């Protein structure tokens, strides 16, 4: 029964959080955003005290039920091992304590060093997010598009089509590799990953050994058949010794279902609220090795000894013994460390790069594919669309709400939730090493629309802090830079002005491309030939008021020049209010 409830809850949780991760309409996060926020690491990074207390209480009550229900990566492993249709496929393995704590230290160190993505590599929620983002999300979108075509056929506007594109090769490769490793581990040994690599599992294990409810073996009933051990995906039941390593048990309830003697039950038996360690030997607990079966006593015990069990927990319930020094680990909270060393990193401007940029831009300009210069002789047809190429930005652009590059780096575990939620195809996983797989802003496919703050709404870790639309339109994440060598009015003497016309902040004004164009005393335009001309045909170049520019990228995205736009955005390392 308990197991069935656990499985149903897990299935619901897993499906909903997967939907949250792949949803691009913004519907899911309204109702399900909390599912990402109750994940342990995001809550820790966001300093979400309520959630942390809740998770602590949950674990103290039920052990690592978190790993069996709330953690999507855990449930994914259960699903994978479920496909291996073999009963009793596991064996007890001793805890790999050193490795486990090493992983915790590694994660903490990575976070302290502002390498959130590196920590994210082993963190369960973001790992699951990346797998979903890279593999499931495109499939979901393809299915959506099929549905959208159907909707279009029936003149319904309920479903609309979206672009499916490869956002990052490296993120996909990493997602596939990690998925492969986890799948193999899950297939062979159930929750091996959770109990060796996963730092969240280890942290929760520190608490779960004091859980109020815990599986316990009633030695008087146990016939030492070993079914519980072989059904335990966490490999934490030593049936020979009747011991259960509660730091690794994920409270799945499989063992209770497997036991034919009803010897395994959920029990509250323990010395309540007292750390069960080697440090207090007086209570009789001697750790894993202490719980040797005592056949005589076992036999002597009456059949109906429940009340007795309550009185003498030490004989029947044997919990694992945590190492004392590790009890300190939770206090080692790396969250808020912001070392000064990492700040200067991207603000160092290399003068040589600007020159390189300018010259590459110029070369690209020579090869601009814009427009058919063939004169139009027939009607109909389309000019080809020239796809955009990202400019070589000296400073990367981070989404509004992320406050600064540093804040993003230290808080983001690269779960890809924002990337898949971005309705304008602006966010994609970064491939630079210092921000690897964390969201990066670029405007080849769309721009950061003024009415959208989706990424800030979905982010569970506080890497992108929640901001209102008003704050979002007043946040400066970068500024526009004009490339004279590519600009149509400057180069060809033709009118354009699209950047100015589309600028949502009105930060771009137009001035005549050369002083050969001027207004006469009547306010009429005079051309280079000295004749009056249609003001709409005067070539005007953009001038950017960088104080008003928010760096939204409308100008870059809508610039008619391609593949390199004649105006592009440089990011700011620290965002500003304007």
């Amino acid at each position, binding site marked *: 029964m308990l197991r069935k409830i656990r499985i149903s809850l897990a299935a619901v949780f897993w499906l909903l959080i997967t939907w949250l991760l792949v949803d691009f309409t913004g519907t899911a996060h309204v109702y399900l955003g909390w599912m990402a926020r109750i994940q342990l690491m995001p809550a820790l990074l966001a300093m979400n005290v309520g959630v942390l207390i809740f998770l602590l209480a949950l674990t103290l009550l039920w052990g690592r039920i978190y790993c069996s229900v709330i953690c999507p990566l855990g449930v994914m492993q259960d699903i994978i091992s479920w496909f291996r249709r073999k009963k009793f496929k596991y064996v007890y393995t001793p805890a790999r304590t050193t490795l486990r704590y090493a992983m915790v230290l590694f994660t903490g160190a990575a976070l302290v060093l502002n390498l959130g993505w590196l920590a994210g590599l082993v963190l369960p929620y973001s790992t699951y997010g990346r797998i979903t983002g890279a593999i499931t999300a495109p499939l979901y979108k393809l299915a959506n598009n099929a549905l959208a075509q159907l909707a*279009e056929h029936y003149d319904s*506007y309920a479903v*609309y*089509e979206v672009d499916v594109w490869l956002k990052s090769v490296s993120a996909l490769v990493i997602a596939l590799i990690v998925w492969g490793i986890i799948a193999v581990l899950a297939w062979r040994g159930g929750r091996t990953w959770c109990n060796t690599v996963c730092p969240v599992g280890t942290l929760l294990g520190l608490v779960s050994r004091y859980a109020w409810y815990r599986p316990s073996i009633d030695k008087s009933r146990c016939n030492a058949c070993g079914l519980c051990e072989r059904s335990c995906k966490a490999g934490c039941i030593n049936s020979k010794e009747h011991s259960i390593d509660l730091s690794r048990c994920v409270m799945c309830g499989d063992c209770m279902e497997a036991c034919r003697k009803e010897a395994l039950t959920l029990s509250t038996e323990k010395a309540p609220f007292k750390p069960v360690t080697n440090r207090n030997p007086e209570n009789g607990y001697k750790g894993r090795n202490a719980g040797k079966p005592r056949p005589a006593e076992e036999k002597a015990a009456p059949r109906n000894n429940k009340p007795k069990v309550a009185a003498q927990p030490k004989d029947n319930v044997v919990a694992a013994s945590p190492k004392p020094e590790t009890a300190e680990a939770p206090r080692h909270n790396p969250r808020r460390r912001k070392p000064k060393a990492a700040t200067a990193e991207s603000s160092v401007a290399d003068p040589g790069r600007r020159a390189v940029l300018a010259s590459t831009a110029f070369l690209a300009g020579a090869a601009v594919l*814009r*427009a*058919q210069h063939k*004169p*139009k*002789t*027939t*009607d*109909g*047809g*389309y*000019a*080809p*669309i*020239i796809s955009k190429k990202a400019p070589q930005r000296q400073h990367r652009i981070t989404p509004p709400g992320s406050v600064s590059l540093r804040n993003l780096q230290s808080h983001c575990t690269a779960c890809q939730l924002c990337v898949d939620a971005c309705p304008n195809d602006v966010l994609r996983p970064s491939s630079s090493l210092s921000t690897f797989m964390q969201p990066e802003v670029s405007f080849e496919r*769309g721009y950061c*629309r*003024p*009415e959208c703050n989706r990424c800030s709404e979905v982010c569970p870790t506080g890497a992108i802090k929640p901001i209102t639309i008003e704050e979002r339109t007043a946040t400066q994440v970068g500024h526009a830079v004009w490339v004279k060598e590519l600009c*149509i009015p400057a180069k060809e003497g*033709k*009118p*354009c*002005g*699209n950047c100015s*016309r*589309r600028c949502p902040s009105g930060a771009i004004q137009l001035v005549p491309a050369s002083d050969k164009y001027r207004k006469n005393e009547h306010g009429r335009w005079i051309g280079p030939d000295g004749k009056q001309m249609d003001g*709409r*045909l005067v070539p005007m170049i953009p001038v950017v008021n960088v104080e008003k520019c928010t760096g939204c990228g409308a100008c870059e995205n*809508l610039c*008619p020049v391609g593949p390199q736009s004649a105006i592009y955005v440089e990011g700011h390392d620290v965002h500003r209010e304007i």
Partner: protein
Amino acid sequence: MKQINRRDFLKISGTAATGSALAGCGVKQESAEKLDPAGQHTTELPKGKMTYRTHPHNGDKVSILGYGWMRLPRKKDPNNPNQDMIDQEEVNRLCNKAFEYGVNYFDTSPAYCQGKSEESLGIALEQSGRSRDSYYIATKLSNFSPTQWSLEAGQQMFENSLKYLKTDYIDYLLLHSIGGGGLDNLRKRYLDNGLLAWLMEQRAAGRIRNLGFSFHGDVKVYDYMLEHHDEYKWDFVQIQLNYIDWHDNDKGRDGEYLYNELVKRNIPAVIMEPLLGGRLSKVPDHVVAHLKSRKPEDSVASWAFRYAGTPENILTVLSGMTYMEHLEDNIRTYSPLVPLTEEEARWLDGETANLIESYPTIPCNDCKYCMPCPYALDIPAILLHYNKCVNQGNVPESQQAENYQKARRAFLVGYDRSVPRLRQANRCISCRECVSHCPQNIDIPRELQRIDRFVEKLKQDKW
């Protein structure tokens, strides 16, 4: 009591319906028998009943329905999934059907369908197996680009037409869409380079049987051409005529003026844009009801075609029929043409026209003369999407509008469906290259900017 069976009942009611229809219009001689003897509803096309008009000068018997070879059915290009191409098989089917029901006038141009229209017509006519003297081919000298303004380029264009159409003479040759760019443009295209003189020589030599022009735009050009009728001897003139444009403040679009100028000189008129590229069939619901309440069984489009075909000096009415249903509907309307009564005509160009024009649609007829846009926009698709939403009531005037959320979604989702994002209005840089190509004189960049501002308003929900 006399028993009546079902068949009798249907017969009686059928006759009654016909009777009342006759009483209603008072003109219709052919009773529209919609039920066959078995009492089944029949939609069989009337064969051999097409109305023909006789050319006053040379006696050509031209079907009142002319086939415009511009809005041809298209399909995906198997060699290039990003492009489409003319669906020649379907075109052939349409052509054969048209022949079968008496259509004998086909109007094409070297500029239509990215230059593929003439070739397509040549193939369709050849496969029909009809003799050359059983139909009339109309094509044009479409030298719009300044690169084509020399005499040689014009001559070459004419020779190419003959080649593509697989013939050695053209029945009706038009100077294409004069009026755009004013008299200056006319001189450069046809007069100063001697092209018109050369075409008149060809007429004398029999390679052109009828010489005429099609007109859109600056009425000065129209007047100039008619003033010089004695010199040029126009055999026909092609004008835009429909019940929306019968009265127009712009003389260049005022159907009554254009038509009557031709009547004065006894020049037969060929009518284009009778349906305004579908604008007079894709009308708002209550205009449908308005028209249907008068004749529930007639199509919305049939009113426009009867309107265009009724004046006596009209030789043929061109329709670009993309689908078989269009063709069949028009065959029905014109087999035979039941001319409008004076009252019906005034009802259309008065009350009905006002009703339609009260909707702020953009007068785009989807002719695609503006395309290709050098900045890759899909201009007609944008304008048509806007018109569709206007007609369906999905262009909310404010956020307080009753159906605002629904209309907003329909407009925005429909926009992405009708126009790929990279071809939408926010890509228009106002280079104004399209403006001179539009026969309807739409200030395309201005309309696109207006639509984009509306889209932004919807997207940002800021009013």
